[in-house]
């Protein structure tokens, strides 16, 4: 088995402009995607059932997917087989007045006569979803604001703090754009994932800032040390989240799948943002900013 080593990057070969250009371009691209989503759908990311309202059923039936599609008065938005269990499906509907669970029970054949067809049902009215949406926005906003204030309190100077805030912002925007492209709707689970990104991603930024600003020694030496630790951290978390996302997808546990997936993407974005965007800002600050 090979050993996992953090590679040493020769940062002297790149200018600050070059370093910052890549993450900024990715960020700009992500923002464009979100803006496009806003223009086309009215929201930057498609809203899932938790926020737009609708019904989701997990059913167990011997009927085929085509039968399931035809079994309801309302056409399902999606029918998706659960990987780990035979005959189980997740079926989603837009908001409706009708009782979908009842229709499933009466129109589909159960696997076991004693048990019903519907294993799990979640029904959210449009207005409830609207409320949840406002609350989630408020929560995300408050979390981000709180984190930003804390960053300023911790480092008490503008550039290093703004570096943390900018990279956290990008860490949030990139997974959102990814959701848009991969057609993952915003759900309670993904919001939880986004909030965790704020918590997780700041770790490596703080580590980097701390090593460069609060300790003596050569800039590149400090950077390398911070990277040794920080990249190990982030890659370990990414691996755990990927495993969690895949296994949860196989078992059909949506909440855990969305948290895992969003964090995986967010942490990947964080690697780039921390060691390119944040680093270039810090290098500028250390060599030119302070001198001014």
């Amino acid at each position, binding site marked *: *088995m090979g*050993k*996992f080593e953090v590679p040493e990057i020769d940062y002297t070969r790149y200018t600050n402009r070059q370093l910052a250009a890549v993450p900024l371009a990715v960020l700009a691209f992500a923002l464009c995607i979100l803006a496009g989503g806003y223009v086309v759908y009215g929201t930057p990311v498609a809203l899932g059932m*938790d926020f737009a309202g609708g019904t989701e059923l*997990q059913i167990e039936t011997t009927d085929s997917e085509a039968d399931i599609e035809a079994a309801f008065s309302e056409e399902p938005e999606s029918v998706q087989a659960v990987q*780990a*269990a035979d005959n189980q499906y997740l079926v989603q509907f837009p908001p409706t007045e009708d009782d979908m*669970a009842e229709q499933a029970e009466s129109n589909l054949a159960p696997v076991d006569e004693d048990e019903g067809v*519907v*294993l*799990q*049902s*979640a*029904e959210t*009215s449009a*207005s*409830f979803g*609207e*409320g*949840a949406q*406002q*609350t989630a926005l*408020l*929560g995300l906003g408050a*979390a*981000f604001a*709180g*984190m930003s204030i804390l960053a300023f309190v*911790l480092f008490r100077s503008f550039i290093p703090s703004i570096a943390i805030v900018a990279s956290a912002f990008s860490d949030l925007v990139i997974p959102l754009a990814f959701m848009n492209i991969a057609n993952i709707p915003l759900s*309670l*689970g993904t919001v*939880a994932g986004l*909030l*965790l990104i*704020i*918590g*997780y991603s*700041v*770790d490596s930024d*703080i580590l980097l800032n*701390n090593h460069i600003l609060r300790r003596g020694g050569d800039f590149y030496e400090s950077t390398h*040390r911070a990277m040794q*630790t920080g990249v*190990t*951290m982030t*890659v*370990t*978390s990414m*691996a*755990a*989240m990927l*495993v*969690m996302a895949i*296994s949860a997808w196989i*078992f059909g*546990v949506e*909440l*855990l799948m969305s*948290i895992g997936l969003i*964090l995986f993407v967010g942490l990947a974005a964080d690697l780039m943002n921390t060691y390119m965007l944040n680093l270039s800002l810090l290098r500028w600050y250390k060599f030119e900013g302070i001198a001014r």
Partner: protein
Amino acid sequence: MSPVDFIKANWRVLLLAVFISFSLFFMFYPGQVIGGDDEAGFSENQTEDDTFHNIQFGLGLDGGTQISAPVIGMTVENIELDLDDPEDLEEEAQSIQDTIGDELGTETGDLLVRTDAEHLEISVEVFTDDYTAAEFAEAIQAAGLEVSEDDVRDGVTAETRDDMETTIESRINEAGLSGTSVSQAEMDGTFYIVTEAPDMTDDELRDLLEDRGVVEIVLHYPDGEGGQLNETGLEQPDMGDIGSPSIDSETGQHYVPVSVNPGAAEDYEALMQETGFTQNPGSCNYDASDAEGSNYCLLTMVDGEVIDAHGINPDLAQSMDTGDWSSSGNFRMMTPSQEEAQTLAINLQAGELRAPLNFDEAQSYTISPALADQFKNYSLIIGALAILTVSGMVYLRYGDRRVALPLILTALSEVLILLGIAALLRMPLDLSHVAGFIAVVGTGVDDLIIIADEVLDDGEVNSRRVFESRFRKAFWIIGAAAATTIIAMSPLAVLSLGDLRGFAIITILGVLIGVLITRPAYGDILRRLMTDK
């Protein structure tokens, strides 16, 4: 080494050991752990009789139904009254309620005026969506109060919501269901009543919540001109003791025995005499067209619907006629079936649901016990896989068991301590909590890696002083990172965003335990392992 020195040198590890032992105790000590209210204990007996641990599972991992629904109604609050004598407040409020009621034509129980004796203020609520805000404001103006349409807000007062919470709770208790919880949640300015019931399907819980349960006995008697009149005789507050549903062995009639409160009993008796009921026992042929104009029926009504119509029993008629009945006030409320007698008894015991719930704007979630059980196993597997992955990565990175093994054990002990706390607090665990556990392992490992790198920096740690200084450096980063995670998660812990509250609470708790207890201990363990060699 003296014991004091030993403790001084190893306090971090000792503290961790203490926490782990306590957690194990809380998790596995059979029976009830410290504290806890009776209700929760009851649910535990019901659902987790044969488990070997004290951990409770929530809806998502145990099966059941949750419904969150807003309340139907409109409210005007803080209307000041200009009273000469504060004693008149109640009386004035009653007359205002009557005026508004007449103006709007509300049915029994759809209108309520609450008084605030301290500020001499009243609030007016209407529990139906049959009227517009303008109509409501006009009706209040008709009672001589200065209120505009803008003062009317959707929803009901906090008192009404608390009232409803109590009613739903007692309804569920009356129905013999356990482990249920009722709470309120505010989202974007709207208040929701959240009812959680294990062992119940969506339809069952809906049935229980749907009925207002406004119970009345209505007198249905001839108006003397060939028609019939209806008059309310008894209402729920008039009844004292409510018996259990019974059946009359002679007639086979189902009923709920009640005793009418003194005062109300006299009024009722007088009314029965005035209307001629006591002279016409057994002459009820409800809804038959040829009996129109000659019916003497007692109607058992629930939410404005007639569930039973009966003539008065000759014996009862006689004892009412002589005025003897009111001293005992015993009365039978008739129902057509055993089931309805049961529902009626529950409605009488629990009282009416002050306002109806709006199921059109609700959210509901149901999961079958079988699937919930599967989820339990799945989350164990997913959690185990995540931890295995982390362990593998850490081992790959350090290639040194002395660093990697305690690191993983420390991360696991955080989960263990969290489970202990959950068992102690009887926190019902759900999928969202599982997500929280995994997040805690994630942040935990991050911090442990920081400590390991910092402590192992530049070769051997050969003195205590060097270790302490390096540890402090590491701790600054960990503390800062923990603070951000806590700040990022705290909005979720406060806002009522469904499942996510549990996730946030576990993550915050886990980070706190990690930073204060387990992660420092790991530093100590690492120092021993690295210096003692």
